[in-house]
């Protein structure tokens, strides 16, 4: 077992444990905090798997912007009222059954695959290589994604604003 392997298993344990804790917390703020840990772990995993730029973006966008946005909304709405039951019976039983079945299916599929047992070679895609590749081969997709983000921005703005103005126009 190499050092890289030890790091991988540590990171995997960090991701799984923090995610597992996150989805069982009742307090939404705690959930978000644990998820930030999970995303940090993911970012480091990306670094390990040779994608430093992605690791950076994961931290900045996911763990930074998105999670802060969640926190912001949670605090704005002040959803302090605890759920009546965190896992309603009619929901968690089918979900658990589905997950168990998927695990069994996945294991059955993975066990006979022998070629996947070969350890991965280390390699790195430097940010400049990645950037060149991205803008040479996928410039159109980049533009489309930027339009998608713009649309999402306008949509979110519209959703938030129209309700406010409708409320302010409401005489009562």
């Amino acid at each position, binding site marked *: 077992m190499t050092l890289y392997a030890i790091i991988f298993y540590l990171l995997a344990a960090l991701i799984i444990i923090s995610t597992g804790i996150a989805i069982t917390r009742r307090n939404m703020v705690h959930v978000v905090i644990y998820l930030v840990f999970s995303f940090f772990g993911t970012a480091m995993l990306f670094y390990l798997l040779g994608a430093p730029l992605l690791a950076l973006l994961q931290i900045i966008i996911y763990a930074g912007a998105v999670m802060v946005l969640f926190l912001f909304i949670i605090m704005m709405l002040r959803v302090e009222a605890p759920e009546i039951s965190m896992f309603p019976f009619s929901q968690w039983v089918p979900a658990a059954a589905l997950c168990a079945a998927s695990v069994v299916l996945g294991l059955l599929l993975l066990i006979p695959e022998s070629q996947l047992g070969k350890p991965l070679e280390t390699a790195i895609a430097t940010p400049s290589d990645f950037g060149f590749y991205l803008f040479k081969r996928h410039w159109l997709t980049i533009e489309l994604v930027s339009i998608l983000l713009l649309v999402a921005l306008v949509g979110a703005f519209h*959703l938030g604003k129209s309700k406010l103005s409708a409320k302010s126009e409401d005489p009562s």
Partner: protein
Amino acid sequence: MIVPFSHVMILSGIVFLMGVFCAVARRNLIMILLGLEIMLNAASIAFVGGSLHFHLMEGQVFALFIIAAAAAEVSVGLALFVCVYRRTGSLDPGIGE
């Protein structure tokens, strides 16, 4: 020498199933959205792992786009939740029942 590719896939699968469980079992709209985030995260782990396994940059490119799409989805989704909360005063997905 890191680890076999199958271990990366197992990790990704476990995280994905946690996301499914979170999205399905928690009775809260924000938790559903967080479950979706976890699932997307698992998918990007699988893509980056595959990128290393097959020595193709495409996997990393895809992971980047996943991050972008997740950001867009979260912004619209949260705006919608705000609307829902203003209208119904709660974030219970079963409010209509």
